[in-house]
C-alpha cells in the first residue's frame, strides 16, 4: 500500500452566519463536523456529495486556506495546522488548488504570462528569464500556445481558462493538488479534454489529488478511492469501483442510483418524493441521513452511528453495518 501524503484527522469547521429577513438570527453552519481521511502517494482521492455537504470546505481547510476550528492535518510528517507562517509558505508550494471557475480566480487586467510568473517570483524560485521560460513550458504542458503569455483572461474560452488555472497551480511544482469541481462548469467535450490533461499530469508528475466533485461519473473515472460526505461528515469511504458496485451506506446508494446514465435502458426516475432536504445549519438528530433513509430504524433517530472500518479501504458510518447490532 502506498504511503499517505496527507492525513486529515477530526477536521472541524463551523461558520457563524446571520440569516433571515427582515429579522436576522445568528446560526451555526456545521460545515465540517470532524472528518478524517488520508490521501496516498500519487493517488486521486475523491470527495463527493451534494451542495452544502462541506466538500469544498474540506478541500480548503485541508490546505489551511480556511482555518479549521479543530483537527489535525499532516502533510508528509509535518503538521499543517500548527505550522508557523514561514513554514506554511513553504508548505503552500507543495499544496495547490484548482478552482471550478478559473475566470473568477484570474485577474482580468493581468496578462497570463504575469499571472504564471508571479507565484514563482513571490517564492523566489528562479530569476526573471528562467521564470518566463518555465511559464512557457507550463503553457505547452497544458496545451496552450506560446502566444497566450501576452493575452488576457477574457480572450480565452472556459476550457482554455481552466487550462490556465491548471498551469498556474503547477508553477510551484506542487505534490498535492486540490481540484475543486474542476470540470463542472465545462461542456462535456471540453470536460473530457481537461480530465485527460489532469490524468496525464498525474502520471507524469506523480501528483496526488483531492478531487472534489458532485458528479459521480467523473469521480469514478478519475479517482482511485473516494469519500462520500453528507452534512459535514464522511458517511462512507472506499476504493473505486468497489464502492460503486456495492455501496454500503444508503446515501451512497441513493447518489449512485440518482446519477443519470446515458443509456435509455437505465432511466433514473425516482418516485419517492421528499420534502425539504435538511441543511448543515440544523442537521437532524442521530444519523443526519435518517430523514431521507429508506432503511431508517428507531436507533437512527437518536444515535449517530459509529465509524466502522471494514478493511484498509472501506469504512462506513451506518447502523445497518454496525459491528454489534
Amino acid at each position, binding site marked *: 500500500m502506498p504511503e499517505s501524503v496527507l492525513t486529515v484527522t477530526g477536521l472541524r469547521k463551523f461558520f457563524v452566519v446571520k440569516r433571515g429577513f427582515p429579522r436576522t438570527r445568528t446560526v451555526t453552519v456545521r460545515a465540517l463536523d470532524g472528518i478524517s481521511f488520508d490521501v496516498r502517494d500519487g493517488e486521486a482521492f475523491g470527495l463527493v456529495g451534494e451542495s452544502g455537504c462541506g466538500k469544498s470546505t474540506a478541500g480548503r481547510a485541508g490546505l489551511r486556506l480556511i482555518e479549521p476550528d479543530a483537527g489535525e492535518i499532516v502533510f508528509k510528517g509535518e503538521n499543517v495546522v500548527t505550522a508557523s507562517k514561514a513554514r506554511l509558505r513553504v508548505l503552500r508550494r507543495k499544496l495547490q488548488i484548482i478552482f471550478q471557475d478559473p475566470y473568477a480566480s484570474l485577474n482580468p487586467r493581468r496578462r497570463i504570462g504575469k499571472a504564471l510568473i508571479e507565484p514563482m517570483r513571490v517564492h523566489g524560485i528562479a530569476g526573471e528569464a528562467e521564470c518566463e521560460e518555465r511559464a512557457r513550458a507550463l503553457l505547452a504542458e497544458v496545451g496552450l500556445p506560446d502566444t497566450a503569455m501576452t493575452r488576457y483572461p477574457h480572450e480565452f474560452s472556459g476550457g482554455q481558462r481552466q487550462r490556465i488555472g491548471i498551469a498556474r497551480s503547477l508553477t510551484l511544482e506542487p505534490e498535492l493538488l486540490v481540484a475543486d469541481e474542476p470540470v463542472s462548469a465545462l461542456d462535456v467535450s*471540453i470536460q473530457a479534454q481537461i480530465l485527460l490533461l489532469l490524468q496525464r499530469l498525474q502520471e507524469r508528475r506523480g501528483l496526488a489529488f483531492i478531487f472534489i466533485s458532485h458528479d459521480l461519473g467523473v469521480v*469514478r473515472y478519475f479517482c482511485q478511492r473516494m469519500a462520500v460526505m453528507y452534512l459535514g461528515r464522511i458517511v462512507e469511504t472506499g476504493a473505486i469501483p468497489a464502492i460503486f458496485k456495492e455501496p454500503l451506506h444508503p446515501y451512497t446508494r441513493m447518489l449512485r442510483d440518482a*446519477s443519470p446514465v446515458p443509456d435509455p435502458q437505465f432511466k433514473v*426516475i425516482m418516485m419517492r418524493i421528499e420534502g425539504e432536504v435538511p441543511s448543515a445549519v440544523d442537521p437532524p438528530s442521530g444519523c443526519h441521513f435518517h430523514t431521507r433513509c429508506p432503511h431508517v430504524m428507531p436507533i437512527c433517530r437518536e444515535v449517530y452511528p459509529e465509524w466502522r472500518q471494514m478493511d484498509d479501504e472501506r469504512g462506513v458510518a451506518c447502523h445497518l453495518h454496525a459491528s454489534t447490532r
Partner: protein
Amino acid sequence: MSSAGPPALDNEGTRSLGRAARSAVRGEHTTAPILAVENLVTTFRTGGGWHAAVRDVSFVVQHNETLAIVGESGCGKSVTALSIMGLVPPGNGRVAGGQIHFGGRDLVALDEEEMRKIRGDRISMIFQEPMTSLNPVLTIGFQVAEALSYHRDMGRREAAATALELLEQVKIPSARQRFDDYPHQFSGGMRQRVMIAMALACRPELLLADEPTTALDVTIQAEVLALLAELKAAYGMAMIFITHNLGVVASIADRVAAMYAGEIVEIAPVNELFARPTHPYTELLLRSIPRVDRDTAGLSVIAGQVPAIGAMPTGCRFAQRCPLRQPICTERDPILVPLPDAPDHHVRCWVRAAPGEGRRA
C-alpha cells in the same frame, strides 16, 4: 424545385421531416403534430453584423411526446426555445426565417399581443434558475394564481384555490402553510416545483423546459424528472426538454434532437439514438461521458472547440473537429436526411449519411 442549390435542399429537409412525423405517430396518420418548426433561422447582432444562432432547424413534436434537444453551450438549443415562445430579445435578436406552426397558426407571424395570449396559457416555459424567474417580493401562492386570473379570468378566491391544488400536485410539502411564503424561503428543488406549478396552471398543451434540473443536486434532479414525467402523463401534454446532459435525456426523452453550432445534426427516437449514434459529433459526445455505472476504459476527446457565431465555416460546421472529415465536408453544407434503414433517424453528415438516395426521391 428539382434544380440543385439551397431551395432544393430546403425542400428535401421538409420532405424528410414529413416522413419523420408520419413514422413517429406510427399508424395515427390523422393526428397532426402539436408543434411543427420549419426551417427556423434566428439571428443575433454581434460585432456589427447579424449572425444566425439557429439555422435551418426543423422538427415536430407530437401530442404526449417529449422531445429532448441536447447540445453544448452556444449550440442554439435555448434560442430555439425562445424563438418558439416569441421571447427572442428584440433589438439584438430576431426570428429571420422559417415558420413555427402551433394550433393551426404560425407563431412567427403573430404580434406580441396575440403571442401573450398563447404564452403561459397554451405554451409554457420553465427555466434553469427558478430564483431569477420568480418575483422575490410576491408570495408563491400569488405568483401561481396570477396566470389563472390573467388567462382564465378567475376571481381571486377561485384562482387561489386552484393555485393551492397545483402546489399540492407538484408535491410541495404542507402547501397550505407555505402558500404565503416567499421564494427565498424555499430550497432550489422546491422553487423549481413552484415554477412547474406556475407553468402548468393553465394546463398548457406544450411545455418548454430549459435545463430545469441543471442547477439541482442529483437526488433532487431525479425527483423533479419523476414529477415532470408524471405530470406530463396526467396532463397529456407535449414537452420540449432542453439539456446538455445526455444522462437526463436518456431518462426522460421519447425522441432526441442533437444540436451543434446552431443546427440539428441528428434526430432520432431515444433508443435508436443511444444504440446507434450516427453523426460523428453525437457518437463522440456519448463516448466522452464518464459513466457512473461502469468503468470507462478510455474517454473520447473532441479536439478543438465550437466555431464562433460570427465565424462559421462553410460546409459542415463540425468538420474542423471531425476525425472522419472528407474534402466535401468543408465545401458544401450537409443536409439532414433519413438513414436508409431507419426513416425516423435523420443525420446531417456527408460521410455517415450521404443523401444520395434521398435526393432522387
